[in-house]
């Protein structure tokens, strides 16, 4: 049983980055292929040292809410995003980085964790990737 999951990560919020990486890792673990297309605020999380830096999508309260949720996550033994990203890559997950976002936000490749990126692309890359996918999500 194969199949493919393709996720667009548009949000850079910590909780949504978790959603994307958990779902993508779940797909890989269950024998599917998985790709994540990082665009807009999501792309910011590919910058060096920024993976864990996103705010909480709700009740961030200038970072106080995020700190509280992070503590609760630690207590519940939730894996850090860095581990989920490394697992995703180890299991063959693919990362596509949006070139237009880089241009709009003025980001150079030197600012990005390029060791994670398999492809630099635009909408055509997403459609090409997703046209035969059985799961596709916009987060």
């Amino acid at each position, binding site marked *: 049983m194969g199949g493919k999951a393709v996720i667009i990560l548009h949000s850079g919020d910590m909780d949504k980055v978790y959603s994307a990486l*958990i779902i993508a890792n779940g797909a*890989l673990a*269950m*024998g599917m292929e998985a790709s994540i297309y990082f665009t807009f605020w999501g792309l910011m999380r590919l910058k060096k040292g920024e993976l864990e830096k996103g705010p909480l999508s709700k009740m961030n309260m200038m970072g106080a809410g995020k700190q509280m949720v992070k503590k609760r996550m630690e207590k*519940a*033994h939730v*894996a850090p995003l860095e*581990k989920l990203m490394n697992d995703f890559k180890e*299991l063959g997950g693919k990362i596509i980085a949006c070139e237009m976002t880089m241009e709009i936000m003025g980001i150079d490749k030197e600012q990005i964790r390029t060791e994670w990126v398999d492809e630099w692309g635009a909408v055509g890359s997403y459609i090409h990737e997703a046209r035969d996918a059985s799961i596709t999500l916009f987060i």
Partner: protein
Amino acid sequence: MAELEVDVRGQTCPVPLVECRKAFKKASPGDLVIVKGTHPASKKEIPMACEALGLTVLEIEDKEGGKEWEIKIRR
């Protein structure tokens, strides 16, 4: 035939599934993979993953009065 142990006791979603997948990649066909965990959903989701991957679940056993579980899988 080798035996691989995956200890994911105390770990939560999606780590038990992910660590199993890593072990299946490392193991050779015929090897025995023994997974020990505490995360309740993984107890039913690991067998679902095995079915999707075409692997045989030999045994699912509750341990420590139901607080832990152990799943034996033939790679």
